[in-house]
């Protein structure tokens, strides 16, 4: 995009700024627009599960404008602050939460090469930044000068710090299978038919996906893990004292995080932007080239990924309105006594599977194993070209046995 603008005659700095601005606005709209849609969907799903109708009138049929009406109502509300509150921290907290949620989207790929900033450590970055969202919650709870808020914030802190352990273990498994932390490469390695998804790589990854789902729901504070805002115990938890637009920032952050962890699950386990059936590859289109067909393929991938992430969000809503809330000790037990050991065992199992059965159980079952590398070996300032093959055979064989198993030369299909 920036290259295109430079080609139009714009100076470089302006071109880069415009390109960055477009990406930022698009990502922002994913969160804000997503929140509008998801809040409406949540109302409808909750209503249907509870045998009600939900919003029906606003905007004609199905009440599809209900979220917008809510937004206008929130805009018109008075911005209250408790008398004893720490003003600076109270005002800052929603923005901290929202910024953390937004920043994690930078490294999230939406389709091949449709990514804000392709990071070599994408998985790590997303998990690290997502963990910062809890700062806003703790600041809100502390600065509100309310015991309900403080209770909610401390519960949230305990929960998030605990659930980062099994979540990290779950995330490591696809990283190990792919041999890279680059989200784009991880998704590329699952291209082809649905059986190439890491969810179906081996039994261990299938189990660990469900552990990831549990931990993801807990890490974004959704019921049955919504201890931080348990409305039957703590009024509204950490955002008891918030009103109006500041309050809605917390909710945009929450829905943004829900979408983010769902999209991360899609990229790590569900093939990313690769659909269940490789339609584009079957008709001979490729996403790597620069022609217009490639853009069409990327658009298809974008729809795929957003569809998968939306399905994940809807799953979370279904879980929320079906299961009762856990107690705090049950939350901790779920994390430390079940999720962490299961994740550890599944991690070891996936490791041994990759070591001894890199091609899968069925002979002749091919995977796109080794063709897609990160491309750092021939990079500028990297190795001279002559030494690259030797290092590749030594290093790659050590890191990823499937490369040396003879499957590497096969085509994905």
């Amino acid at each position, binding site marked *: 995009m*920036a*290259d295109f603008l430079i080609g139009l005659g714009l*100076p*470089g*700095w302006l071109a*880069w700024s415009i*390109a960055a601005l477009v990406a930022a606005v698009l990502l922002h709209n994913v969160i804000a627009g997503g929140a509008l849609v998801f809040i409406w969907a949540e109302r409808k799903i909750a209503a249907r599960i509870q045998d009600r109708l939900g919003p029906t009138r606003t905007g004609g049929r199905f009440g599809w404008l209900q979220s917008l009406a809510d937004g206008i109502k929130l805009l018109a509300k008075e911005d209250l602050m408790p008398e004893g509150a*720490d003003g600076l*921290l109270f005002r*800052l907290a929603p923005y901290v939460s929202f910024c953390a949620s937004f920043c994690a989207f930078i490294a999230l790929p939406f389709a091949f090469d449709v990514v804000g*900033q*392709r*990071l*070599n*450590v994408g998985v*790590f*970055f997303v998990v*690290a*930044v997502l*963990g*910062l969202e*809890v*700062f806003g919650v*703790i*600041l809100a*709870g*502390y*600065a509100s*000068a309310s015991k309900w808020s*403080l209770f909610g*914030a*401390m519960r949230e*802190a305990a929960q998030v*710090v605990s659930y980062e352990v099994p979540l990290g273990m779950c995330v490591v498994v696809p990283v190990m299978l792919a041999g*890279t*932390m680059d989200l784009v490469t991880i998704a590329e390695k699952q291209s082809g038919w649905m059986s190439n998804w890491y969810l179906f790589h081996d039994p261990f990854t299938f189990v660990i996906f469900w552990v990831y789902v549990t931990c993801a729901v807990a890490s974004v504070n959704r019921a049955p893990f919504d201890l931080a805002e348990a409305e039957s*115990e703590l009024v509204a938890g950490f955002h008891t004292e918030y009103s109006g637009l500041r309050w809605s920032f917390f909710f945009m952050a929450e829905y943004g995080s829900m979408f983010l962890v769902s999209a991360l699950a899609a990229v790590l386990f569900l093939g990313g932007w690769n659909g269940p059936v490789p339609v584009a590859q079957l008709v001979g289109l490729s996403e*790597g080239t620069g022609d217009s067909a490639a853009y069409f393929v990327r658009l298809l991938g974008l729809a795929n990924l957003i569809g998968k992430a939306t399905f994940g969000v809807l799953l979370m809503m279904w879980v929320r309105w079906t299961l009762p809330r856990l*107690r705090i*000790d049950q939350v901790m037990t779920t994390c430390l006594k079940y999720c962490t050991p299961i994740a550890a065992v599944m991690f070891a199992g996936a490791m041994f599977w990759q070591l001894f059965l890199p091609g899968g159980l069925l002979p002749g079952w091919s995977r796109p194993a*080794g*063709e*897609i*590398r*990160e*491309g*750092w*070996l*021939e*990079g*500028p*300032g990297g*190795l001279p070209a002559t*030494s690259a093959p*030797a*290092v590749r055979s*030594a*290093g790659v064989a*050590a*890191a990823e046995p499937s490369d040396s198993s003879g499957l590497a030369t096969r085509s994905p299909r």
Partner: protein
Amino acid sequence: MTGMLDMDISSMTHVIVPALATTALPALPMAGINWHSVLFLLFAGLACGFAVGVVAADNVVRMALYLVFSLGATAGLFFLAGAEFLGAMQLMIYVGGTLVLLVFGVMLTAQAPFVSIKPSSSDRTLAAVAGASLLALLLTAAFSVDAWMAPGAGVVPAPTATPLGMALVGVRVDTPPSGSPSGGHVGYMLPFEIVSVHLLVVLVGAAYLARAKRRRTPRAIDAVASAMPVEPTVVATAAVTAPGRTTGGAKSALVGGGR
């Protein structure tokens, strides 16, 4: 093998093109402003400013918050330098670790709202002397390195995590192998193993120290329930809403606050 090389090169362009956006901005028009330096000064100023804020603030939670911002700006510096792994590490360990500091700050000062901490003037003087001497030492050391006085080296190779991971399992891919039988530099397999075993020992020890002590006496909730006969629903409510805080104080507060 040639197919793999082609694939590498074609994907390489995708790695480098976004990296240019942040790292290769010099030599542009607009009066020759070096945008890399501008961004560097921005992040460095943020880091230093919030560091001063940590010292100047008198509220523990605000101090922790300023520390978070300062460390986050440092992570931005790492990202600006192309060290993505180090930047993400900084976010994960330092910024995330400050979270625990923040929690402790909240817990320690939650007795009275917004306790302020004012060090005595002698403490301030001592800290100022120590800090200034360390700063002077670091500044002279930094300015004595000639290579750091020149402008930046431009584009750094974007991927950083994979060579690091390779080095940790004993394969150094960042240095070309020399003629020696070991193939140039050895990796960091042994330090990595030592550190990981050390961490495991620390984890086990922490779990041992923090484990729940086996109760000799009956639980407090039972004692309360037997000493003060109340209707069973209230006890059940207390057990549900305040697990872990099943002392008489929490219960009475709940009963009193609920009415």
